[in-house]
């Protein structure tokens, strides 16, 4: 084995790979299962964007909090939410992370610092500011990360939050997951100032753009912005440019994309393949080790799907429970 040239130990590299593979397998499997008609509602898949969630979350602990998006499965998995509970939730079962009452767009696990996927675009930004404010009051050194897309970057809530975070010097990171599309609308059309670093500097925040398909680029930049926020250096913006392998939601015919766009992205912009090639070529991790993780992840997702399908739905009394703590 060669000397490890990466800023992560071998165990950490394997952990990152396991996380990315788990997300990919989870999403690819949902794509298949959704087409069978077993999954109710809207499902938005994160495949292609795994390096972003993983490169960032490798720097976070359970005391750090994230506010996610409608495309939240990857964030959940990378933040440590139980995959079985997630799958059951997406199937609307009582064993789900939210007892079947939230679904794909509202998976949350506050014990893991996962403040929820969110069906309202941009709504996580103020919430993350609040979480960061709580950390500041508590002095627990927690950092909050809010994810939003190139589309939601045009929400007033997001812009207000950048200003608030700057004014209060909150330990919050604004992550723009720029996959080029707001649903079907191109970022070129919908965003007047095309650089999110420009946006950030308009609020006096430092911003950085990285290739979101390059795990090591995300990891390095995220490490630095998170370290700064943690130590009182204030908020930053991190833009990750990446490709969404599937449609906006499952069932999207994607007629707005170029003809071979998805194929080209899968061939040239697959963050997991890039990562695997890199660590293998460097001689730090063997193909067999990666293969073992792939098998392990496949089995995990198989099991999660089977368990979710066999689980019971919520009982009718659940219709009106959990509205209030007390009423």
């Amino acid at each position, binding site marked *: 084995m060669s000397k490890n040239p990466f800023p992560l130990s071998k165990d950490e590299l394997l952990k990152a790979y396991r996380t990315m593979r788990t997300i990919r397998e989870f999403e690819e499997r949902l794509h298949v299962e959704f087409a069978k008609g077993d999954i109710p509602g809207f499902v938005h898949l994160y495949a292609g964007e795994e390096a972003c969630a993983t490169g960032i979350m490798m720097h976070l602990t359970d005391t750090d909090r994230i506010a996610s998006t409608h495309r939240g499965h990857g964030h959940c998995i990378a933040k440590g939410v139980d995959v079985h509970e997630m799958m059951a939730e997406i199937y609307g079962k009582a064993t789900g992370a939210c007892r079947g009452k939230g679904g794909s767009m509202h998976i949350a696990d506050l014990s893991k610092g996962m403040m929820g996927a969110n069906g309202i675009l941009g709504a996580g930004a103020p919430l993350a500011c609040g979480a960061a404010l709580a950390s500041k009051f508590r002095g627990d050194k927690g950092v909050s990360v809010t994810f939003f897309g190139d589309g939601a970057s045009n929400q007033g809530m997001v812009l207000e939050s950048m200003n608030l975070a700057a004014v209060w010097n909150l330990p919050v990171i604004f992550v723009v997951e720029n996959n080029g599309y707001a649903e079907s609308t191109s970022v*070129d059309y919908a965003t007047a100032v095309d650089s999110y670093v420009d946006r950030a500097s308009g609020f006096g925040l430092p911003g950085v753009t990285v290739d979101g398909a390059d795990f090591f680029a995300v990891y390095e930049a995220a490490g630095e912005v998170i370290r700064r926020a943690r130590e009182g250096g204030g908020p930053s913006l991190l833009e990750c440019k990446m490709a969404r392998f599937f449609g906006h939601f499952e069932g999207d015919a994607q007629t707005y994309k170029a003809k071979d766009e998805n194929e080209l992205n899968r061939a040239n912009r697959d963050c997991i393949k890039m990562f695997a090639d890199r660590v293998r070529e460097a001689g730090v991790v063997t193909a067999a080790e990666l293969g073992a993780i792939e098998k392990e992840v496949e089995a995990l997702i198989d099991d999660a799907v089977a368990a979710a399908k066999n689980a019971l739905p919520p009982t009718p009394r659940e219709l009106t429970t959990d509205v209030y703590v007390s009423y």
Partner: protein
Amino acid sequence: MRPVVGIIANPVSARDLRRVVASAGSLQIADRANIVLRVLAALAACGVDGVLMMPEHGGIRGHVMRGIERSRNLHEHRFPEIAYLDMPVTGTAADSTRAAELMRRARVAAIVVLGGDGTHRAVVRECGEVPIVGISTGTNNAFPEHREPTVTGLAAGLVASGRVPAKVAFASNKRLEVVVGKRPPEIALVDVALVTDGFVGARALWRADTFRELFVTFADPNVIGMAAIAGLIEPVGRDESGGMMVSLAPAATAKTVLQAPIAPGLIAPIGIEDWRRMPAGVAFQPRLKAGSVALDGEREIHFNESDQISVTLLADAFRTLNVPAVMHFAARNGLFQAGAAQIATAFA
């Protein structure tokens, strides 16, 4: 043939980690577009009526076209005709290289480049004999000089319209050629640095204790970045022959320690082991066995023990426009005085 100038404006320069770790600026897209408009107005004033532009999806094009349309609605006649190159946009440095190649084939008289050292490097890969003139919009720019873009545009316009002799207008430049293993050769306009980071990651050079070897085409204490390290040891001019090679080490263990501005607002202790002049045409073999190679301030290629590396300085590698010389020539010869054919109509 009517004079045509090319403009390559990179929308994605100056977005790297140095905005976070230092206080590097980020020139806004709208500002970059305004620079393009100022250059266009200056070119038109010198009688350049055709400009070839690089297409991009970073937002510059939209702002520029809006600016031209507004001016047209106001009947100002300030801008030349614009055509965009027909090429796919990838959003990477490859776009600048491809644009330079297409402009060379279109026989433009000069290429105006908006970007940092990295953008200029991408252009120089393919511009061949076409002279370039740079406008700095990047972060750690040692290569493009800082100047109001209107003046740069005027100089480019005068040269493109053939009113300044070549021996006045152009300067020749050195560059570095780097070969890593079996990869095709890479170039650098200012510096090649070998660092211990075994990964490209976020690219920017910002952790000084990883720096091991440095090769520069010129060493200038008036710039920031890697060229400043060499420049603070022993200045070597852009027009002097040869470059410089510096051996570096972590500051804690080095023989001598130099405080150098390696990024905007980031002055770091740099451990210096040794340095020497680097004659042109001689291949240097760096000692570092594994790490990555940074070209003009950005990590680009990782390498290990199995990769042979060589760094060679080339003289007379490409041409740039000598803006001060052109403007002085214009002043001495009355090129801007009323009556001087094309200028006069443009300023009327």
